[in-house]
């Protein structure tokens, strides 16, 4: 485990060095810039909270994708499933917030989020299993459909009465996730952390996880051993969709407070990176999600504190991850060849 981390971390260091060169070229002292990055992301309770909040959706979605990718099901549609979950959860929240107490409404909203994401992924599963449509194509297409559906609904039926913005009404009191008193840390952060061991148990301690990994490793072998490959594929897609949907409703209910057009903020795509960078191990995904969040929050801080262009921060963020992935791949190829 420790050795597995050496290569990506070394890669990240190289990426930071390259980033330093770019920052220096743009006329800023890279040491000052990086200090801004670290302090911005990790410098205090407030910063750490921001980073944790940023990591939460990445972690939740990434864990779901870990399940799917372990089964060799390439769900590229977490973005759409996230929106479907957000939409379902928000609708339940808006309908229930006037009449239901939080202890009843919050679980309902979370369930709606899980179900919405699963249903959206279920469409792709159905297309794959019924018609043989590649899940990659189906999930990508469904991303567009989900984004357009949110766009339409936030402008039409679900638009906040009297507003001109493409967004729903605010979720109020009982429809908001509880937070740790005095902080912004919400129930969703806790859920994401609890999901880490849960997914680990699912994959390595349950019969279903065993079958899932067998199907991913060699579907022909799994079929010859009498496993239901179609059921495994469906489960993998539904499970990853459900967690993406959960992330969606959590983000709306705890952070945004309402569903806006363009709400997904690329979490569904970034989580693919997070899952792969985490080597499809739940603990690895936790580390990867946190690092990703550090870079994002830190880059924003660098931008606001030092006036570095946002684009530069993003280049830095993506560059570090890219080099880390390359280093990881190189290290693995060497062990495979040796």
């Amino acid at each position, binding site marked *: 485990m420790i050795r597995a981390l050496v290569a990506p971390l070394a890669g990240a260091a190289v990426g930071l060095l390259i980033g330093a060169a770019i920052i220096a070229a743009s006329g800023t002292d890279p040491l000052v810039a990086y200090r801004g990055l670290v302090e911005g992301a990790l410098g205090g309770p407030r910063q750490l909270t921001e980073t944790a909040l940023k990591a939460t959706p990445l972690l939740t979605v990434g864990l779901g994708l870990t399940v799917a990718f372990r089964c060799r099901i390439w769900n590229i549609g977490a973005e759409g499933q996230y929106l479907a979950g957000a939409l379902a959860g928000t609708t339940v929240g808006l309908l229930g917030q006037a009449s239901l107490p939080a202890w009843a409404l919050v679980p309902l909203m979370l369930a709606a989020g899980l179900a919405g994401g699963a249903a959206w992924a279920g469409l792709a599963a159905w297309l794959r299993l019924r018609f043989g449509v590649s899940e990659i194509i189906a999930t990508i297409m469904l991303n567009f459909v989900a984004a357009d559906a949110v766009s339409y609904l936030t402008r039409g039926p679900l638009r906040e009465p009297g507003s001109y913005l493409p967004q729903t009404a605010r979720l109020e009191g009982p429809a908001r996730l509880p937070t740790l008193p005095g902080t912004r840390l919400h129930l969703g952060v806790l859920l994401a952390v609890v999901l880490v061991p849960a997914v680990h148990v699912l994959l390595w301690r349950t019969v279903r996880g*065993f079958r899932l990994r067998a199907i991913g*490793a060699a579907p022909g*072998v799994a079929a*010859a*051993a009498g496993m239901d490959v179609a059921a495994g594929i469906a489960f993998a897609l539904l499970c990853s969709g459900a967690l993406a949907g959960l992330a969606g409703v959590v983000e709306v209910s705890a952070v945004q407070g309402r569903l806006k057009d363009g709400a997904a903020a690329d979490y569904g795509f970034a989580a693919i990176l997070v899952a792969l960078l985490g080597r499809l191990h739940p603990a690895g995904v936790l580390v990867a999600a946190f690092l990703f969040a550090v870079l994002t929050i830190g880059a924003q801080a660098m931008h606001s504190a030092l006036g570095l262009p946002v684009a530069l921060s993003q280049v830095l963020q993506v560059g570090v991850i890219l080099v880390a992935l390359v280093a990881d791949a190189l290290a693995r190829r060497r062990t495979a060849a040796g």
Partner: protein
Amino acid sequence: MAGDPEGALVELRGITKRFPGGTLANDAIDLDLRRGEILALLGENGAGKSTLMGVLYGLLRPDAGEIRLRGEPVRFRSPRDAIRHGLGMVHQHFMLVPTFTVAENFVLGRPSPRWPLLEDRRAVAARIAGLARRHGLAVDPDARVDRLSVGQQQRVEILKALYRGAEILILDEPTAVLTPQEADELLAVLRGLAAAGRSVVFISHKLDEVLRVADRVAVLRDGRLVATLPAGSTSAPELGRLMVGREVRPSAAARSGERGEPRLVLESVAAADDRGVAALRGVDLRVHAGDIVGLAGVDGNGQRELEEVVAGLRPVLEGRVLLAGRDATAAPVRERLAAGLGYVPSDRHGRALLRDASLADNLVLERVGRSPFSRAGLLDRAAIARHARRLVAAFGVRPAAVDSPAGRLSGGNAQKLVLARALSRDPSVLLVCQPTRGVDLGAVERLHAEILRRLDAGAAILLISTELSEVMALADRILVLYEGRIAGERAGTAATAEELGPLMGGRRAEPARAA
């Protein structure tokens, strides 16, 4: 070495290769290859034959030792390097693009003289035809590779090596995929190549063909070269002893032959292959309890489809499949397994084993959902490991580390594992496909004995194998599958290779197109 270095084209000196994990695959091997000779490299699976040739062909780097080619020390960094120095290798798994024509496969990976355009197709085809004529390797340059028989594909591989100027040809178990007639033809071609001054290394574990074709035989055992003998002055028993390290007795199947009720019945079964082309055309077959039916035939005549139809992996288009008296035509695999079917798939990596999963996990693939391996959906790791340790010991799987990945096992041990899994469920019907492909002699004995033990316990066994000697050694009745039909049936004890060979070839004697 006894050989005189004067005639040595290739000299391997002190070749040592240790794999991570400590296995000493080659231990200080000295070996010469002379110009114009056929050198057989004989040894069990895991003896180090493929490693040694991998070193020679630039696929592996030795930890110690030296390769000399025409007296000059050489270091091959890759197969490309080796090819440039006049080596060619025909692997067990052909390195051909199936959807390309023969000629297209020849230009693949070679610089084109008219870059960026491809080499002129007709010129290539003419050169191939010329080469084919010279060496008696009839092949149609414009035929798509996936339309060719396995034997023809092998000729393409040999021609490809010659086309690239190979003076030294390494063939890895080349007869494993051929009919007896095709194998004879191949051996004749190799003799011709040697007579024309090329040198051939012939990797094999079949004693008789080694004695027929080789000038000299080098025997490897446990990574060491135990002997190099002129083929003319040795015998099959001697080679067998050298190879295994003890006497080998042929597995004989003389039994009482008591038959019970039919356990596996196929009634005019038709099925299609993956491309939707008819692959089984009305197969009737009946296997009784205590009966072992051998299905012989050349690879690609419907064996795989028949296997999958019986296992439940391929839909039956017409006809019925009865398993233990019940109609199982549409039953999924798990119902058939529950009904008492034991299945040893022919495709070890595509159907039988998860390479990266542990031995223990592989041994419970079929029943991980059952007690004692899981309870309430949670795996019982301890029970799975206990089960694995018991089976691995009972079947002599080596190495016996049940946590190590199955992909590390040699062919023989992998096959023991698969058979152990199937037999551990006490199947009443056993479908065994290619149980000893790529398996060493010692393990073959063991595998055959286990299969026969199951038979004595009253199982109905269907053995599908392209290894004719195996079918003849084990089966009570032999059916020959040709182009999706049962082309003939013989009693197992009475059948001879001369009699079965023509049935296996049907009337489709290969056209000599290049003539």
